[in-house]
């Protein structure tokens, strides 16, 4: 249709033009003669003469780019055509002024596709970009194309053949690191101020260097949650590495990328770069498919200062963020909003996924007379499982146990006078009927909280320096929680549970000298106390056999390096490395053993214990034997050198005598000592004589 218009215009114009050009025909009546003299040759081309006018001359192709075709429009009869037109106008007029629209009809009904012409190409392009895929309702998802793409269709070759299947690229066994016979774990180390990245294999004696790559990353590295990939950061984007040789598995171009987050299943990766966003072209947050490298969806960052912006559900089926006083939950694989709408929660403060179920918890603060509220909601059903109102709330923090069995909300509350604070812990027992909530009151502020992984125990650090205490609580059936023990006067500020529970390290990081206290929660006892002075980081290895503590160059410029401890708190290895920045254990995927198998192994642990102990003893024996052997050879070598030197020294005896004119050599003892008495002040004592 637009073509018609342009054609018409063209015709009109060309008529005028003809008129102009043939102007002399009409001017015959004029007396004056404008005819070219006889034999005149026109050397001036039209272009020179009226180039500016010609440049504006429309062509049939003009306007074709501002025309779009919309498919999948509902088929309606005449009676509802106006209504449809209104809806269409509403959707498409936000991209620009609509100049023309056309609804082809057949048998009194629309054909299900329409043409829209915009005032300019830009608007049309915009409409194609954004309205494509617009969900009018369940059955009508618009497919918007520029009209010009018809040309492509026309140009199709007659003998079309399907694209060739790309050969399968074997990336090797990405889980090969799990095949280590001794189940040793790997870790990455960044040192040299960020210039160098090494991968080590931790063994019971000395770490083995597996890979060394200078300039592997430009900022830092991170492991994917199950340890399959190592992600490195570059100006152009993210690269993922894996397999035996740490070869490149994928790359994701995102200029200036600063932060990434993997989905728990490692299928997707979220990248963030502080690029300017436009509503039509969000580019600051991108979600990628790890395996194909495809860009799944881009989001605007908004004014979120917290990373990760998106929180993933435990299996990676959903991801959610807070946006405009609502929780927006998106679903995989469509990457669209779940049920097409956010959950409106006015003035929501924070939310969290349960690590064990598709359950979300969130809280909102007190506003005027409405109390603060903690809600637990099931996804995708959106039914509220439990709501708890809280009064006089200053702030809340939510902590999920890693299986989703418990949720603890630590609440800072005002006293009646609003001058002081007191503290509550609200523990939701999710596995019990109607989710009973247990409340514990505390006099002191809680500075750190951590659940025992897979367990019922949690640890808190409370109180102000110098009266800092650490307490352990255990949750019991029937919605009860009991205090196990409080350890007083501790110089600690962080809690690190072993990945399988039972053991726990309380650490005094950064400002606190680096005290490391190792606890066993079966006995509820302090096993050992160590120190890594000025330590900044603590991390358990994924098996729970070792703990690493490190002093990062990023935080402090001296004494950088890392130590490795046994889980009982015995210092095993000390590595002081110049400009050491970061040490990260490579995570392991979840065990493939069923719960029954795990219990069976646990019950037969004695059998395995002996085997492993023997193995350990052997390797230690070997190591200490090697060490002794090395020392012996060093000593032998040194003594040989000394013997040689001693002989040389003795040969020079005469020369030395010559220099000191016959005085005894310094090797010889002088016998005639003078007696000298020296007084020492040893002790001062005062006593009253009666």
């Amino acid at each position: 249709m637009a073509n018609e218009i342009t054609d018409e215009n063209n015709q009109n114009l060309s008529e005028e033009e003809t008129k102009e050009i043939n102007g002399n025909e009409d001017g015959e009546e004029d007396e004056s003669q404008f005819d070219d003299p006889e034999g005149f040759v026109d050397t001036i081309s039209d272009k020179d003469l009226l180039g500016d006018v010609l440049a504006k001359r429309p062509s049939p192709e003009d306007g074709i780019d501002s025309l779009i075709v919309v498919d999948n429009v509902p088929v309606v009869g005449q009676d509802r055509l106006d209504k449809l037109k209104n809806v269409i106008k509403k959707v498409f007029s936000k991209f620009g002024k609509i100049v023309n629209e056309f609804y082809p009809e057949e048998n009194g009904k629309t054909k299900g596709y329409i043409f829209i012409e915009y005032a300019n190409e830009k608007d049309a392009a915009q409409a194609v970009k954004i309205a494509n895929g617009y969900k009018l309702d369940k059955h009508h998802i618009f497919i918007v194309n520029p009209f010009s793409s018809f040309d492509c269709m026309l140009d199709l070759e007659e003998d079309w053949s399907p694209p060739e299947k790309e050969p399968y690229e074997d990336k090797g066994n990405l889980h090969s690191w799990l095949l280590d016979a001794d189940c040793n774990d790997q870790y990455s180390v960044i040192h040299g101020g960020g210039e160098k990245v090494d991968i080590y294999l931790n063994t019971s004696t000395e770490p083995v260097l597996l890979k060394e790559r200078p300039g592997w990353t430009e900022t830092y590295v991170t492991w994917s949650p199950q340890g399959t990939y190592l992600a490195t950061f570059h100006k152009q984007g993210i690269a993922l590495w894996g397999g035996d040789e740490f070869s490149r598995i994928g790359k994701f171009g995102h200029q200036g990328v600063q932060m990434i987050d993997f989905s728990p299943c490692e299928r997707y990766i979220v990248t963030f770069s502080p690029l300017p966003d436009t509503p039509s072209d969000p580019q600051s947050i991108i979600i990628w498919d790890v395996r194909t490298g495809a860009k799944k969806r881009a989001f605007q960052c908004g004014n979120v200062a917290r990373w990760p912006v998106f929180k993933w559900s435990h299996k990676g089926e959903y991801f959610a963020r807070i946006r405009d006083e609502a929780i927006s939950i998106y679903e995989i694989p469509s990457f669209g909003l779940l049920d097409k709408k956010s959950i409106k929660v006015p003035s929501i403060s924070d939310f969290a996924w349960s690590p064990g179920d598709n359950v979300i918890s969130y809280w909102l603060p007190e506003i005027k007379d409405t109390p603060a509220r903690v809600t637990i909601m099931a996804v995708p059903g959106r039914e509220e499982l439990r709501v708890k109102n809280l009064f006089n709330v200053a702030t809340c923090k939510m902590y999920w146990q890693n299986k989703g069995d418990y949720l603890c909300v630590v609440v800072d509350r005002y006293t009646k006078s609003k001058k002081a604070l007191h503290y509550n812990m609200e523990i939701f027992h999710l596995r019990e009927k109607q989710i009973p909530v247990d409340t514990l009151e505390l006099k002191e502020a809680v500075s750190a909280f951590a659940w025992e992984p897979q367990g019922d125990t949690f640890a808190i650090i409370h109180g102000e320096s110098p009266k800092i205490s650490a307490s352990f609580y255990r949750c019991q059936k029937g919605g009860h929680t009991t205090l196990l023990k409080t350890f007083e006067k501790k110089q600690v500020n962080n809690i690190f549970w072993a990945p399988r529970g039972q053991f726990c390290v309380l650490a005094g990081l950064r400002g606190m000298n680096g005290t490391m206290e190792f606890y066993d929660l079966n006995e509820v006892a302090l096993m050992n106390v160590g120190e890594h002075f000025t330590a900044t980081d603590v991390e358990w290895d994924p098996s729970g056999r070792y703990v690493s503590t490190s002093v990062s160059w990023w935080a402090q410029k001296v004494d950088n390096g890392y130590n490795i401890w046994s889980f009982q708190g015995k210092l095993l290895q000390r590595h002081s490395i110049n400009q050491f920045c970061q040490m990260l254990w490579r995570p392991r995927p979840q065990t493939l053993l069923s719960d029954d198998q795990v219990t069976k192994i646990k019950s037969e642990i004695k059998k395995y214990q002996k085997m492993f102990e023997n193995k350990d003893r052997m390797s230690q024996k070997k190591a200490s034997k090697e060490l002794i052997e090395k020392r012996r050879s060093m000593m032998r070598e040194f003594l040989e050198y000394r013997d040689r030197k001693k002989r040389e020294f003795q040969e020079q005896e005469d020369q030395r005598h010559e220099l000191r004119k016959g005085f005894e050599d310094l090797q010889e003892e002088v016998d005639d000592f003078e007696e000298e008495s020296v007084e020492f002040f040893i002790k001062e004592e005062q006593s009253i004589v009666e």
Partner: protein
Amino acid sequence: MRPIALHGHERSITHIKYSRDGDLLFSSAKDSSPSVWYSINGERLGTYKGHGGAVWCIDVDWTTTKVITGSADNSLRLWDTETGTQLGKFDTRSAVRTCAFSYCGNRIMFSTDKQMGHACEIFFCDIRDSAQMGHNSSYLSIPVDGPKVTSAIWGPLDYYIIAGHENGTVCQWDSKSGQRLLNVEGHTKAVNDIQPYHDTTMFVTASKDTTAKLFDSDSLEHLKTYKTERPVNSASLSSLKHHVVLGGGQEAMDVTTTSTRIGKFDARFFHMVFEEEIGRVKGHFGPINSVTFHPDGKSYSSGGEDGYVRLHQFDPSYFEYEFEY
């Protein structure tokens, strides 16, 4: 045993030195009053008065009758040990950084700083010749272009001296011809101190590059390395056991900003052969500038930026301890 802290100096200790018998301890400090102490009980015998600036170095001859001191007042002075009278003075154009008596005790060497437009120079004098000490004329002077000498000792039999330079190189200089005999790049940063083994066949260097190293005197062959995390200002070899003591710590200019713990002002003991640390002694609250074993190896002393000299007697357990090999 509890150490004896000698608090006689008003400013940082720069150098300490035992007499050959070990009964006396000589100390120089930035307060221009070099002192001598009884090493057995820490009593001060007296001071050598005359310098008008910080004293950088001190040495005593093998007969313990003469003492030389080099100072930032651009002079080297020779003293009578017992009376404290000044026997001679050698005026230089810049501060005297190092000084040492030769094995025979008749000759001395000293070096000056590259300073105020003057190059670093190594001087050799015969102290028996009053013409030399009285008229500022040395029998040999070696101008050193490039990095200045930061520490020096005499080699065996007085044929050459071993000097450590500001850029970490260690050189042998012939004491007669003034020629550079050998040159090794021992360290990457300034060599703060050199101390000989009791028979002078080996020596240990202490460097700002946070290591101390053991070298063979004749060949300058590198034998061992002792690694720490802080600049090492001084290192000494025990004549009794295979032990090395290192003193140092965070640089004085950074000390005020951090705690004593971070500064690491401990004296650190290493096994001479295995290069492994065997012990630490705390005490100073500033970096240790000079540390030295008693000639009998049964005690050691350290002088620090904090102005104290600490005399340490080893406990019996020190002598019982044996490294497993």
